[in-house]
């Protein structure tokens, strides 16, 4: 009798622990975001990927259609090679273009796909040829400042004349 009630309490304790872990994995973690859909890989080259990370989302029209599986560097063309892991139920035309976008002003970076009009579809191991690099904030700012300075300079020149 005593042994049985002991087992009951210890079993309850272990069960609460498992429920806690499950709660953490499902509610706090990204376990529920794991999809068990079949996937296929396509690759894309970018001149600059900015702050893109592996496991970043791949969106099309705002819907998650896959994830970035790996990021590499190609020392022949000096470009970044990004492998995208797309869900098999979503098919894209061959001339689909990929952009690196930012959610919000300072948010995470992700890849946006825009479907083209080609009749042929991308297959596993295919390549996305039309890409647009990430916008690097520093470059934008320096460009803006440079333009400002150039404007001021030309204003002065015209005032002298």
């Amino acid at each position: 009798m005593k042994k049985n009630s002991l087992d009951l309490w210890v079993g309850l304790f272990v069960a609460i622990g498992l429920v806690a872990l499950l709660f953490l994995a499902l509610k706090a973690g990204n376990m529920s975001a794991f999809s068990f859909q079949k996937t296929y890989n396509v690759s894309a080259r970018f001149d600059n990927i900015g702050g893109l990370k592996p496991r970043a989302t791949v969106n099309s029209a705002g819907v998650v259609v896959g994830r970035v599986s790996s990021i590499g560097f190609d020392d022949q063309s000096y470009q970044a090679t990004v492998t995208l892991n797309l869900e098999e139920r979503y098919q894209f035309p061959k001339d689909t273009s990929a952009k690196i976008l930012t959610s919000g002003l300072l948010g995470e970076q992700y890849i946006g796909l825009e479907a083209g009009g080609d009749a042929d579809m991308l297959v596993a191991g295919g390549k996305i040829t039309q890409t647009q690099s990430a916008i690097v904030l520093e470059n934008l700012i320096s460009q803006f400042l440079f333009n400002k300075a150039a404007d001021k300079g030309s204003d002065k020149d015209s005032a002298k004349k």
Partner: protein
Amino acid sequence: MKNSTLNFLKDRLNGLGRSVRENIEALGFATRMFFAILGRSVALLKRPILVTDQIYFLGNYSFVIIAVSGLFVGFVLGLQGYYTLNRYGSEQALGLLVALSLTRELGPVVTALLFAGRAGTSLTAEIGLMKAGEQLAAMEMMAVDPIARVLAPRLWGGIIAMPILAAIFSAVGVIGGYLVGVPLIGVDDGAFWSQMQNGVDVMKDIGNGVIKSCVFGIAVTFIALYQGFQSKPTPEGVSLATTRTVVISSLAVLALDFLLTAVMFSK
């Protein structure tokens, strides 16, 4: 005058050498004892009730203190995190902050510290008193191995109970952070959970937290057993050993946490 200075220095050096030697000896004995316990654990498979007994004693009895502390740590994280994040206008990230700090650091570490205070001390005192009452010696007289009968089930009980307690702590803490953040302060419910789910990785954050708590469980339980087994069989000896358990295992947990964090979360 000169002679006395020399003698003083000589005594000091002698003392230093002795303490270094004693510490290294203690380390060697602790290692030997650890492997002795592991080696005699196979017999437990035949009598798992011994381990169940210890899980009940170490785990179930610590459940209330762990759950209540987790709830309040979650409350405080929710409040403090909100005030800090609010300055940068990103209070939406409150859920992420609460969940990451709990699963990565606070869950395993605070649970281990509480476990050392709640369960470690009672282990040390129990074994120290068994030794003082010559129960361990009596067992050996009856050809019962005290390491296999007394120490091994307690070590395994601690190793099993600790990760469960840490998981409960983290889960209750997340709920506490939610209670303060969403109904009380008014952070958006959807943003709270979705930011958390985007930022917390099951393997990297929760898995590593579980590994951490297993390591802490081994460290705290073993230090408690070692101190009890090595204590002087007097009332003062047992009380000194109990104090030492808390001090040494708390320091060990914090040092191990630094090492594990450096290995796990730095790329």
